[in-house]
Structure formats: structure tokens, C-alpha cells
């Protein structure tokens, strides 16, 4: 039986890396609320047809 470590996650896709950088930028933006940021981080992008509505609700400050 072999032992396994580390390789339990695929390397980040380019989109993941871009989104990570995007969220860092928004985090530095003092006009952007932290609460919105944490909600946006949970949205799977690019997602499906309901994703737009979900994003719109979050950006409006509503619960998605």
C-alpha cells in the first residue's frame, strides 16, 4: 500500500489564479465591502444561467 500526500488538489486553473488576484484587489479597495467579497468568493464562475442573477443580488447587497 503506497502512501499519499499533497496531490489531493488540481493545480489552480488560470481562471482561479485570476479570480484570486481579483479578490485581493477588491480586498484592498476600501470602498468594497468585506461582506460582499466573502459572498462573491463562494460563487462558482463562470457558472451557469443562474449565476448572473446570483452576482446581481450580491452586488446589490442582497442575499443571493
Amino acid at each position, binding site marked *: *500500500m*503506497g*502512501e*499519499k*500526500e*499533497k*496531490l*489531493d*488538489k*488540481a*493545480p489552480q*486553473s*488560470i*481562471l482561479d*489564479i*485570476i*479570480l484570486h*488576484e*481579483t479578490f485581493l*484587489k*477588491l480586498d484592498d*479597495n476600501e*470602498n*468594497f*465591502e468585506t461582506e*460582499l467579497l466573502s459572498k*462573491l468568493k463562494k460563487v462558482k*464562475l*463562470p*457558472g451557469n444561467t443562474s*449565476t*448572473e442573477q446570483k*452576482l*446581481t443580488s450580491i*452586488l*446589490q*447587497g442582497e442575499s443571493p
Partner: protein
Amino acid sequence: MRIQELEICNFRGIKELKLEPKGKNFLISGPNGSGKSAIVDAVDFLLTGDVSRMKGPGTKDIKLKEHAPHIKADAKDCWVKAKVEIPEVSEPVEIKRVMANPRKLVCDDEYLSVLEPIQELASRGQHVLTRREILNYVTSDAGTRAKQIQNLLKINEVDATRQKLVKVRNNLKNKFQNAEGNLKTSQSHVNSTVGIDSFNEEVVLNFVNENREILGGEALTVLDSAQLKKDIQSPDIHSDNSINLELLEKDLEKLPDADFMEEFGLLQSEFKDLHNKIRSDETQPQDRLLLTELGLKLTGDVCPLCDTPWDPDELESHLSQKLDNLTETKKDLERIEKLSGEISHQVKDKLTSIGEVLKASRTLGLDTESFHLMVWEENLLGIDKSVESGDYGGEGLPKARDLAEIGNRIFTVAKEHYGATSPEQTAWDKLSRLEENLKYYEENLIKREEAEYALSNAEAFLNSFIESRDQILDALYTEIKDRFVELYRQLHGSDEEDFDALLTSSGAGVDFKVNFHGQGNHPPHALHSEGHQDSMGICLYLALAERLTQGYIDLIVLDDVMMSVDAPHRRQICHLLADFFKGKQFFITTHDQTWARQLRQEGVVSAKGMVELFDWQIDSGPRVNSQADIWDAIEEDLRRNNVPAAAHKLRRGSEEYFRTVCNSLGAKVKFKDNGEYTLGDLLPEAINRYKTLINMAKDSANSWNKPEEVHRLVAIERSSKEIFNRTNAENWAVNANVHYNKWVDFNLNDFKPVVSAFSDLYSVFACEECGNMLHLSLNGNHEEAVRCKCGSVNWNLNKNH
């Protein structure tokens, strides 16, 4: 991940096949249709549960479960399994995928999570390069290339995300614009009550305080609908049902009249003319304007619509010129937008006054007047609605009764019933109306603030995303470009020393240009030869794959990718694969035996790491010739007393082997136009060449006064002579009695020593340490040394003059 063993059953053109790459580079050669690509497909299927070649354009009627299994094989009997090495796992892991359930990778549950990222990466197709893909990377237009590169990088989802964020931003922008429009309308209601032209809170507050003062109230400092009537009382307890003649008179003045009709008519008529002008133009200028503006955003080195190649600057200039030609349309559309706003404002204003007069008319029980007012209200609402929805086409107002006469009648009746109003009542009524207007204004103010907040969030999100995208992709492209240039220079450094390239994001595409001998950057297929383009494709792919697989998949499949690269550059490619990608396991397929020999000769693959597929039959699939197994297979034939089969293998294997020896040592074989060289043509020349080279090496050692080296070479020479004698090889070309054609008539005892002698003969031409074939090293045309891959053999051929 590397493949130790690969077993294929009833898959594509293969009936049964077992390969043992043992985690090292592996070569599969054979003519077209021998089943090479089926092995590539099998690896694809094993890792992804799909066969990428069976998807995409032109594969509509091809179904995995129907067409992937071998002829007549059941899906449950069609499978691929492998033993794979995975980093961090100490023992090889066995994985299997069956066509009956292609989504499920069968393996020990313990390894499922470890295999997940490998499958995820494999699903991106980053481990297989085919000839078709090389063409797509290099010779295709920017759009197609971008798609290929984006698919490989999986950045098509980046643009899908951007598009989604743009849509969300635009949606919120529309909401903000609507909210702002509603706020302006609510302000115009306030303006109407206060009697001002433009909204000003201070003026409105003064108006409030003036009327409060009449009612004995204190002045307010803040404009707030809830405070308007604070600490003041209505002078008339029936005020709700009463009509204030002063206010009614003002409302009646604002009813649609001849002036309104004239002004509205002018706006409507201009709107209609412009609308018709644009709509009736068969060249569809509005759509062309939109398309041209969009085209300018997407300019690259092809037309974004038809993919025709363009110089990017020329394309941009061409589209700008087209845009200039549409200037009039643009102006017309801007004017239409402005007219819509004015019509909407006028209509809303009249709707407000009609609403107030209608209320009074109903209070007075004037049904006929109320009916005519309602007709007007309905007509205006119809226009308002179509302008709001963007469907307005310049329709006029239908003919309706003149409201001046109706207004007079309402005022006369009101005057009969209510008489003059006290200043207190007028003040109260004004405040009541303003209270209602302000509530509407305050509601819209909040809605506008909310819409502004949402829009600002959406813009921040989108801008941060685009900024991050440009930053990350630019860095990625630079990294890949640098590695691409490094690899390409490795291949073509001798003829393109200063080669450089440009790889940048360009709108939705990827701009890829290469420098041509200092003559500027051009598309790869503009000036470079087909062979150079192939090299570029390989280098670009290797740079991309290396960046993306990141140690998760060490396997790289090169499926028949060496079509146009010439022999010297192929050798460079061998060095590239062997030296620059030491950590990778290459699966290489080719129909080109010369390339196959080069890969072997240059040490990219070992003798054990290659198979030749041949004689494919529909029922049985390909037959396999493996150098690795030649001696085992001959042994097996001899065990079965099948001398003809063993003789066939020895003949075929030896012809292949000594062809490579002659090539490696530069032996002079008599040229044959048909290229069919027998062992009689090859073996004597290989041995003569070997003897010549060892004599040259002895002369060199003597000239450098190296007696030990001389003794060592003499010992090697003595040992090889003994082996040459045993095979009687030197006489083969002239002595028909020992020619290998006679082997098939040998009995078992006669043939066994031949096999033993040939096994020893092979070893003369290989290094004892690394097992790789000896080769002649040249410096230009000068024969410099005989060496092996590991450096253990190094016979200097240069004499000390």
C-alpha cells in the same frame, strides 16, 4: 504521473496489446493504419473517459460507446488499464477504465483523490500533441489559434467569466439609469408643485417654510416629507374632499394644450423622420455601426467575423474608416436618444397635471369630463410606456377632445361648489401635495442610491477582474514565450541565432508572431518553412504543456508530429526531448522509421522502450515487433522448435539493428534506390567500419603516447574479432551457404549458436554500461570520436600532429 505498464483490450483498432514503458520514454512506430493512434486514444480514454479525436468538428455521428470498441466487441469487454507511477505514492497504482462505464475510473478507493487532479488536468488535453494541433497552433489564424491555446490553458472560461461580469454590470447600469430617470421624474413633480424649473432642495425647503409659516409652524431645517406637517394642523377638517381652486387653476393651466401639441408634434415628427431614415435604409446602418464598433474592440490579425487574415493596423484603420462613414448614423442615433428623453419628460409632466385634474373632476362627479381626461391619460401612458421600453417609433397622439373647454367646465363647477380658498387652506393643500411628491422623490432617491451602490460594486468587480486577467495572462504569455524562444533557439540556433517571438493577448485572441532573420515580426506561416513551423508548434506546445502540467502529469504524447522537420533538426529535437525534459515521459508515435531510428540512436528511447506495429488485421489488430523482446521471443520460438519463426525475427531485428549501426558509425553502404537493404548489405560494412574506427583510435592513442589506452583498444579489438569470426559475418555478402535465407532450413542445434553469436555481435556495437549504441561524433565533417550516450566509451580519433 508516468506509465509503467499499459494494457489495451478491444479498443479502437487494437484487439489485445500490452506495453511496458516502465516509466520511461516509449516509441510506437508503424505504417499508417497500423494502430499507433489507437494507443494514443487508449491513453486519452484511460485518463479522461473520452477520446478527444472522436469529438469536435466533423464527428457529429461518431459515438464513443458505439465506435470506440474494437469491431463487434461488447462495451464491457473494451477496456484500458495501466500501472502508473504517481509522485508521493510509493508503489505503482493500477487504474482501469471500461467502455461500459467510461465516467468511472476503476482503482483502489484510497487513490481516487490523488488521481482526481491528474484526471482534471488530462481533461484539459494538456498531455497530447497531434500533428493537427501543431497546425492549429502555428499556421492557423489568430482566432483558431487563440481557441486552441485558450482551450489548452483553459482560459476560454476566463472570457466566459468576463462576459458574465460585463452582463451583470450592464444590467445594473440599466437599473441605475432607470432609477435616475425615475428620480428626475419625481423631481419634476416637486418642481411643478413648487413652481420652479429645476430642482433645488434649498428652494423647496423655503417653499415649505413659507407655507408652514402661514399655518403658524416653525421653519424646518431639513427637507423631509415626514416633517412637512410637523406641529401644524389642517385649517379645514374636510380638506381631503375639498378642491383648492388656486391649485386647480394651476393644474388646468398645465393640461395638454395647443402649445404642448405643437411642441410634442415637432419632437415626435423629428423622431419619426430619423427613426424611419435609419429603419428604411436597406444597408442597415444601425446594425453596421454596432458591428463595426464591436469589430474594433476585437481587432487582431484576422477579421473577427470571417477569419480573413489582416494586418492588425490595417484592419483597425479599415474599420475606423467604416466607422467614419457611419458618423451620420451615429449622430442620428444620439439625437434619437435625446428626443426620447425630451418626449418622455413632456409626457410625464402632462400625466401629473392630468392626474390632479382628474381627481378634482371625479370629486365633482363630472363623468363626461372624467372620461375625456382618462382618454388623454391613456394615450399619454401609451407613449410613455413605448418610449420606456424602447419600442417607440415616432407615433403621434391620437386626436382627442380639446381639454381647454373641459378644463373650463371643471373649474366653473368647482367654483360653484367650493368658492375661494383661505390662504391657510391653500398653504395646507400645497404642503399636502408636496408631501406626496417628496415621498415619491425620497423613495426614488433611495432607489437611485442603491442602484449606484450596486453599479459601483459591479464596476469595481469587473475592473479588478480585467486588470487581474491582463496581469496574469501577460505574465503567463511572457513566461511561455521566453521558454518557447529558448527551446526554438535550441533547435534552430545554427540558422536563427537571434530568433525571437511575440506572444500577447489581443482582445479575445492570442497574437503570435515570430521574428524572421531580423526582418521584423510576422505570422509563423508567413515566411518560415513548413519544417520551421513544425518546430515552432512542438516548442510552443512543450512550453505550454510544461507550464501547465506542473509535475502532475509527466506524460507527454507526441502523436506523429515530425512531418516536415529535416534530419539535422530532428536530431536537435531528440536532444531537446532528452536534455530539456528529463522529468517527462514521452510517448512518441511515428510512421517514419528514420525518425524512429534517430530517437533510438540519440538515446531518447532505449531498445526496450520501442515497439513496431505492423500487419494490422481487422480481427486481430496489429502485430507487434519489439526490440526489447527480440531475444525472449526467439528463445520462445526455439523452445517450440519453430526455427523458421526464430530465423524471421533474427533477420528482421538484425536488419533494423545494423541499419542503425551503419548510420551511427557512418559506414559506407552501397546505395540502393529502393532503400531495401539486407543484412548482406549492412553487416560487412558495419564490421569494416568498426575495424577502421578502432584502428584510427589506436593510431590516435599512439600519437598521444597513451599506451594504456592502446592496450585497452587492442583488448576490445581482440574480443570483437572473436565474435566476428563466430558469426562468420564478414563472409555473408559472398557466401550463399551461410546467408540468413538458409537459416529457415537449419535445425534447432544448428541455429542456437547463430542466435548466441548474434546476441554477442549486437553487444560489440553498444556500450556495456548504458547499453546505448556507439556513435561517431563529428566536428563539422571531421571525425572526432566514437562515443556512447553515457560517456563510458570515448575513442579519440584525433591524432597528435
